């Protein structure tokens, strides 16, 4: 559980430090005029960005717990590591490309370049789908090689972790599909700018998670 504790420690420390800084040195019992300084929103950003940040904390918690469970279960004597298919390297590369493409799209959206946004979205979506298809093929390869899900906890964790990561990716693709539909049916890039910016953050996050998971699977 150390890994989870470290992750949650960081999250909680951030929350607590922020809250203490907001609340320290105030004298709430003294009434003051409601001037413009005393704003009602704590962060000068869109609420959706705040919600995404909170959601990323939730997702981090989920993955950290899975990783903790993995390391604890790994210590039992019946653990037999599996040979990861080389296809996973290609998939990782696809996901990196998807992330880069999304970042490029984001830059285009910020500058208001409609046509680049269109092609950028298409390319990032295509790489993401390739990644997911690659993951399914990797499953089939493992299955064909006899690494069945119920044979060993190492196999089970492999299928489980990739599935959970893939599900998060699918959730991202749903938002991606909505902005892509919008752009292709004639909306300008401004209307999807926020969605693209947030998706970029989400893609980077899922890339990071995948690299951590992949590294862990390779090294154990």
């Amino acid at each position, binding site marked *: 559980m150390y890994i989870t504790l470290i992750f949650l420690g960081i999250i909680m420390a951030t929350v607590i430090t922020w809250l203490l800084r907001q*609340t320290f040195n105030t004298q709430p019992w003294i*009434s003051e005029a409601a001037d*413009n300084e005393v704003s*009602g929103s704590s962060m000068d950003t869109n*609420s959706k960005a705040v919600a995404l940040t909170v959601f990323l904390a939730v997702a981090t918690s989920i993955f950290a717990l899975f990783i903790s469970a993995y390391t604890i279960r790994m210590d039992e004597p019946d653990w037999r590591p599996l040979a990861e298919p080389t296809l996973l390297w290609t998939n990782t590369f696809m996901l990196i490309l998807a992330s880069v493409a999304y970042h490029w799209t984001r830059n285009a959206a910020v500058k208001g370049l409609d046509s680049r946004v269109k092609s950028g979205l298409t390319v990032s979506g295509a790489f993401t789908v390739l990644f997911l298809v690659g993951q399914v093929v990797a499953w089939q390869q493992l299955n064909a090689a006899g690494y069945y899900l119920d044979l060993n906890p190492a196999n089970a964790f492999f299928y489980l972790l990739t599935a959970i990561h893939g599900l998060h990716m699918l959730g991202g693709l749903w938002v991606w599909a909505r902005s892509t539909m919008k752009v292709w049916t004639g909306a300008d890039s401004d209307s999807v700018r926020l969605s693209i910016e947030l998706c970029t953050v989400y893609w980077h996050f899922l890339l990071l998670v995948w690299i951590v998971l992949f590294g862990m699977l390779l090294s154990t």
Partner: protein
Amino acid sequence: MAYVSIADRDHEAEHHDPDTFITKYVWSQDHKVIAIQYGVIAILIGLVGMLLSSAFRLQLGFPDVFSFINPENYYQFVTIHGMIMVIYLLTALFLGGFGNYLIPLQLGARDMVFPFMNMLSVWVYALSVIILVASFFVPGGATGAGWTLYPPHAISPGTPGTDWGIILMLLSLGVFIVAFTMGGLNYVTTVLQARCKGMTLMRMPLSVWGIFMATILGLLAFPALLVSAIMMLFDKLLGTSFFMPAMIQAGVATDTVGGSPVLFQHLFWFFGHPEVYIVALPAFGLVSDLLSTHARKNIFGYRMMVWAIIAIGGLSFIVWAHHMYVSGMNPYFGFFFATTTLIIAVPTALKVYNWVLTLWQGNIHLRVPMLFAIGFIFTFTHGGLTGLFLGNVTIDLPLSDTYFVVAHFHMVMGVSPVLVVFGAIYHWYPKMTGRMYNETLGKWHFWLTFLGTYSLYLPMHYIGFLGVPRRYFAMGNTDFMPDSAITLNASMTISALIIAATQTLFIYNMIVSLKKGEKSGGNPWKSTSLEWQTPDTPPKHGNWGHSLPEVHRWAYDYSVPGQAEDFTPQTVPESEVPVGRDHGTDH
């Protein structure tokens, strides 16, 4: 930057005035309707949980008299009772119910930041409740594994409900977590981003602080339950052995090898302990507001109360293994977790002192909400004190499997939060409905419930001390069960039945007062916080009419010396405070 409220920034999202019955009461995106939907569903399923407890109490008090209770459904009743009360009643009611109602109103917002997601949240929650109830009607019935669902017995033959019950249970928990996450994202974002002008974090009522911190805990802790539920579903459905060790069942070795049941316990309690505070922190917050309002005195040590909430929230993540002393662990770990457990008593005790000091020299009005709030101080202190015993490894080991633990956690996280729930419902009932409840019925409800729970749980500590084990269907003839304990068991069952019957007073009062209650007016308690200053009661869609309120002070300006009234609403600027006779508490 010039202040523009978020509520007015995202115009199109907020002003979708509902016009049909369906959009107004069923698929409503109004936080107040969603709050009441959450509340009604939670109370209905809570009543089911209460009936289940009455049923198994019958068996405990009068063994083998009632033939409809056999060992299988005894365990099913106990399991689902625990599950319902902790998750589907208290978590949903505090965060989904009070969170939804109070956050926008107390912070001066028109609605939650994401109303559509809020609506999804309540209906997904309803779905999780339906799945839970459905588990009683599938082949084999509901799971009887205990609310902690420990493997291996939770999914091994011999335990009730290992065919379908456990699958539906885990599925229902997963669905609940999805619902909670959608709601939780809303609560956190709304608190951070949608407060009205002048509402700084340190002017928020403590109710909002408690709900806010509990939501953060929930968002970070429920994933642990989700992870363990998913892994157990894999073990059950796909034949993996994450948790399932090598076993011999009826003389035959099972397929499972090497799984770690203790891993499940770690994951479960990593959720399970913060869950205690997910239930307790909103109760702390709400009860603070109730005490302050009805004692006509500012809450004692507001900043300390806020920091205690934050500290308890942080500490609640590093105490989980005190639920696992009997599972065996490195003695140093036991020492660590015992220490953190006892440290958490410090901020908690601070809160109790501050509540009592709020009452000190206050102008106490013993109305129904206040009775429940004061009752809470008693039951919570009582339950907290036994917690100090159980936090120590050496005392926990002999007591862990006895009724002492059952009595402890029922006092601290069963009775106490429920008393706050009742107090808070009575307190905000006039705002939700525009009518007053019946005061006499409310007082009967309080006294019967309060004294009833004491007559139920005080003797339970005693029989726990005698060593009477929990979780048993029948005790048989055992040496440690003297006649007095057997008689006490019967009397506890009678108390439980009386408490259960008393709740009909509450339900009756709530329903009949909807039509027959006196009109309450907008601010019957002369309260300072924003929800009592709305232009309409009950507040209309959008809450605030044309313009949002502006806040000039904290929510606890009661009996300020030199002012004409004994309360100054948060919306009143300093220049407009009527000056007059002295209400100070320094007489």
